């Protein structure tokens, strides 16, 4: 088990390095840097001016060197620019040259500075993650129990009318991406055209003061899309368990139907959905970006869109680091959890 976890963690770190390098490479391509120079300097810069502006700020070093500095395994650059000013990666913004450390990268906790929000990337990511955390928590609280109940109810009597109804519902929800269900929800429950106005069509207010009225629609929007999928997995797993020999034995011994479902079937039926739920996290991340944009809830996903739309390189990098870590660690947890829950799987 220990070697299994170690190997998985090793692969995970390698994957994280590759992914962040790809993001770093793509965000640091020359057209992006040129745009950065023009928005930070001025728009009428000539090509040579752009090049010297970038050169002075260390942007024209070779890509692996820049990546190493950003990561914090190579010492930050110190360049005397063509304009005579001494600039370095680790000093200038908030630190004098004398007390600046030699290394300042993500590993040292220096995530850079966001040009869009005029703040430290680490602070922004922290705040936005907190906001999204609440959203995710609510989504999980709605989605997981809802999906499991739906799946178990559908799977315990395969082919019954209840099963067919619930299966249809779950197919419909998997066919409804967030931007469709969100639009429909807003139009029906929040627009002046239909006139129900039960909920608010924007969740901006929920950032400070979360109420049922302003938070219900975004939570529902994200949960619905994932719910159908988890419910279908649970149903399949439940239906399989219900045909197993030990369920028949229990029934022949005279255990009531409720007892069979609760005591014998449920535990074994929930192994498969656990993996599925963990693997839903990357999906939720997608849903979060769409829903936060649609409902104008200024969380992590909203920050991603802002960073990408405004060429905010360092913020985008910070956000990708966090999302890559989230995705990879949920994969790891799902693998380990599967092994722990299912004694039949032997890990070599």
């Amino acid at each position, binding site marked *: 088990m220990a070697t299994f976890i170690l190997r998985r963690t090793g*692969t995970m770190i390698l*994957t994280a390095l*590759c*992914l962040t390098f*790809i*993001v770093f490479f*793509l*965000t640091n*391509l*020359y*057209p*992006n840097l*040129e*745009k950065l120079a023009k928005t930070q300097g001025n728009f009428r810069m000539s090509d040579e001016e752009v090049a010297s502006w970038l050169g002075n700020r260390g942007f024209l070093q070779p890509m692996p060197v820049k990546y190493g500095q950003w990561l914090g395994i190579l010492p930050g650059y110190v360049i005397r620019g063509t304009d005579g000013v001494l600039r370095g990666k680790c000093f200038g913004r908030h630190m004098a040259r004398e007390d600046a450390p030699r290394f300042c990268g993500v590993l040292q906790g220096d995530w850079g500075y966001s040009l869009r929000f005029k703040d430290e990337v680490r602070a922004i990511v922290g705040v936005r993650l907190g906001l999204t955390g609440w959203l995710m928590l609510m989504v999980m609280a709605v989605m997981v129990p809802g999906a499991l109940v739906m799946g178990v109810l559908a799977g315990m009597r395969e082919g019954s009318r209840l099963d067919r109804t619930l299966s249809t519902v779950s*197919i*419909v929800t*998997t*066919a*409804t*991406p967030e*931007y*469709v269900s969100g*639009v*429909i929800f*807003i*139009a029906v429950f*929040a*627009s*002046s*055209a*239909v006139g129900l106005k039960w909920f608010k*069509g924007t969740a901006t207010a929920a950032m400070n003061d979360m109420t049922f009225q302003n938070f219900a629609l975004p939570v529902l929007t994200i949960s619905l899309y994932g719910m159908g999928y988890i419910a279908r997995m649970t149903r399949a797993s439940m239906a399989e368990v219900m045909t197993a020999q030990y369920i028949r034995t229990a029934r022949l011994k005279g255990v009531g139907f409720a007892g069979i479902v609760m005591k014998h079937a449920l535990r074994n039926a929930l192994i498969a959905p656990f993996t599925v739920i963990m693997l839903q996290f*990357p999906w939720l*991340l*997608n849903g979060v*970006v*769409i829903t936060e*944009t*649609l409902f104008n809830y200024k969380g992590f*996903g909203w920050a*991603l*869109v802002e960073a*990408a*739309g405004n*060429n905010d390189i360092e913020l*985008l990098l910070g*956000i*990708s680091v966090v*999302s*890559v870590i989230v*995705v*990879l660690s949920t*994969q790891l947890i799902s693998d380990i959890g599967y092994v722990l829950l299912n004694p039949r799987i032997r890990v070599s």
Partner: protein
Amino acid sequence: MEPLGWADITFRLLIRFTPVWISLIAVFALSIRFRRRLGLYGRLFGSPIGMVGFGVVMFWALTAIHAGLFHLIATHDPLTQIPGMKNSPPGTPVADARTSGAYAYFLLGGDNLARDVFSRMVVGSGIVMLIAPLATVFAFMVGITLGLPAGYHGGRLDAGLSFIANLILAFPVILLFYLLVTPEIVQTGLPSYMAAILFVFPLVFVAVLVNARLRIQPGKRNRVMAATMTPLILLYLVAVSQKDTALSFLPARLDPFDIPAGILVVFVSVVFVNAPTVFRIVRGLTLDIRTRDYVAAAQTRGEGAWYIMLWEILPNARGPLIVDFCLRIGYTTILLGTLGFFGLGLPPESPDWGSTINSGRKLLSIYPHSALPPAFALLSLVLGLNLLADGLREESLKD
């Protein structure tokens, strides 16, 4: 003129779709008549779920064909703005329609730029129904060409390819889209290079397919190879070479068409995101099937590795692959919508469903009518594909 009521609007919408109804009935009548001879497709008409799903999918496919090729169904031009129709509610009559000869009503209202919502939805189906299935086919070509050897040979090849596939899968899709589809990245030519690589896979697939089958008859193989590969290679060169981009090598006279830059970028990124999942499915199926007796028999006969993969393993993996193909078209449709929703890739005036939902959502709480029709269209298409996949799964499990 009076605005139309809802009964009138529904009636007129049904009338507008007349060509679709006729062709739909023809397709169903023919398929049910000959269902015994049509294999899996024919058996689909034995399952109600599959039939409903197939009907919905065919509805949109036929709408796309009629609207795209014959300019039927749509009442107005999807890009023409008609003064006075801005945000008009469904059923609003068009001023001076009689003199200009235009259709007299905006059946589903006008959007915030005074264009007809109904026509945009109908024409948009063409874009979706063109890109989604085609991108899925390409993703399958890539996934099959790489997944078969990875599963069959295993070892280092498998480890390497699986690592790359997991790498792409661990990327949050939206981040990837933002990184690939921004104008600055397009300027570097990265999407063109990716297109050049991804478009090679169908060529490789066909070439290997032909070679594996006809290896022992070199004369026939060379003839078949030449006959299939020449048009494919020409098509490839024409598709990859684009004016004014990093890859522009064909002279203008030999380059009859250019894929619009926006569509190419969207296409490439959708294929790129889908291919790893297909790879994993094909690899898993191959791992399972290669232990069967008929594979061992072929190995004993001395067949080549590619022959076994393409002519022994692949046909036996077709059931799950066809089901996944249907689901994946639906998923690709969702991805396309996501791209449109964030205004990435396709031009903002494009009538595809994602872009129209995006432009409609800003005024959603006052004028919901411009975002809802494309939203329901997308929902129904994906739902139809899911039902179709369910029906196919049910029928293919029956043997």
